[in-house]
């Protein structure tokens, strides 16, 4: 089968209150995305628009403070932030802050 140009398969993990937006906290996604920003946009359009609302500050366009986004276990804050590249087979995790104790 011919692969669609730019399509990547990634595994997305969502935790805490973000997980409540989905049926499962581990989601297999095939999407034409090249960056974390595009992945978030894709997930919001395909699954739940609240995903982006919870993660991204609409005013600044940046990830809301306190949220951690990891690509293959590495914090995108120390990579290229929302422009961090996504490749086929990547593992992307979204950790909202949790305050309970």
């Amino acid at each position, binding site marked *: 089968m011919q692969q669609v140009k730019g399509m990547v398969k990634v595994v997305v993990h969502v*935790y*805490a*209150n973000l997980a409540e937006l989905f049926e499962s*906290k581990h989601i297999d996604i095939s999407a034409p995305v090249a960056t974390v920003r595009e992945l978030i946009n894709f997930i919001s359009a395909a699954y739940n628009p609240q995903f982006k609302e919870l993660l991204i500050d609409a005013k600044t366009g940046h990830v*809301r*403070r*306190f949220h*951690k986004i*990891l690509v293959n*276990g*590495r*914090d995108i804050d*120390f990579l290229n932030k929302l422009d961090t590249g996504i490749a086929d087979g990547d593992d992307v*995790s979204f*950790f909202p*802050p*949790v*305050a*309970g*104790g």
Partner: protein
Amino acid sequence: MIRGWGREGQAKLKSAAVVVAGIGGLGCPAALYLSAAGVGRIRLIDRDQVELNNLNRQILHWESDLGRQKAESAKEKLERLNSDVAIETIDATITDQNAMELMRGFDIVIDGMDNFQTRFVLNRACVSEGIPFIFGSIYGFEGFMTTIVPRKTPCLACIYGDVTPEIGKFPVVGTTPATIACLQVTEALKLILGIGAHYLGRLLFWDGEDMVFREIELQKKSDCPVCSR
């Protein structure tokens, strides 16, 4: 025999002083294991009274304690567990005005809070006083833990910024804070004894639903408003 412990290690524990800030889901098991280990002086700080919805996880508080101050309720049980431990109770809200005074002279602060605002107060006081601060937080089946050693590791403000996020009520499985608290106390005991490798510069994430641990790399922020000054 555990390497580096023995009679000498037990004496170190006896002369150690630890603050448990918040006597809830994290603070109860933390205080219990600190007392059982023989930490000589433990200061319990909590402004709240025991409520019915606390009892699934705050295991030092029982039905008969409903309405009591949490610190007092915990002190009573801990003294029955180990009468050699000096338990102090403070029924107060931790603020920037009193935090340094409350922490001063203590070797370690264990985070048992349920909100970030007070955690940031504790973080600022611990960085200022040079006291290791062992962070823990939970949600449902999930929890985080890291050991913050001022000037050496990233501080809480490096990790999360230094502002208050808006987080409402949280669901919690009773064993989640117990798991995280046991990790916090393990770190505290090793720091006191000077043994083992401490969990520094990394954020430990535990997911009890999938029964997995994950590790998040942390970095000091060169412009951190708390620890870069």
